[in-house]
């Protein structure tokens, strides 16, 4: 398996795993994070990674 890293980084960009996921709404995006299934996944992750996770609204 190949590591899902960027094709190219610039400036302070880190050549590290990057994931973008789309949702129908901000509310659903937040609810997904708070879902029991995802919270269970986070417990398994523990402190294995340092991640910057942001939920942003799309341009209308």
């Amino acid at each position: 398996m190949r590591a899902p890293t960027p094709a190219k980084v610039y400036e302070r960009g880190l050549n590290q795993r990057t994931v973008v996921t789309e949702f129908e709404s901000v509310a659903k995006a937040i609810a997904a994070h708070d879902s029991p299934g995802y919270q269970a996944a986070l417990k398994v992750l523990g402190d294995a990674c340092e991640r910057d996770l942001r939920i942003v609204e799309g341009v209308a």
Partner: protein
Amino acid sequence: MSRAYWVICHRSTRSLDKFAAFTKLAFPAIQAAGGRFLARTSTPARVYERGLIERTVLIEFEGLATALAAYHTPSYKEALRALGDGAERDLRIVEGIDQEKKENRMAKAYWVVCYHSIKNPDALAAYAKLAAPAIQAAGGRFWCARQRRRKSTSAD
């Protein structure tokens, strides 16, 4: 062909004046280079873990070559000169996982996850196995950076 994305996460914005001068030039430069802004905000709705409440931008391009070329156009370079040291940006260009069906795009929100470091790959793999179905069950659709799958061709 997979689409490609610019994922920009500011770590800090030092000069709002320089940043304003930059965006005035950068916005048309990106559009002229084929980029489409999907998200553009200085105030994420929510941040988690090491997430910062800072400028976050997602731009979509037709393909990787277009996405790479956009950074090097004369007009974007001019924008970057205006920015100077006005912001500390983590800018990553990533490919989409496969051909996307854009016709009925209804996305109004995105999770943008930029890893800074991975200390324990096994724990990450175990996490991913649980997280992917949980996110999909909650209505999320991945575009970038699940494990890349390549269709085998005779050229491989």
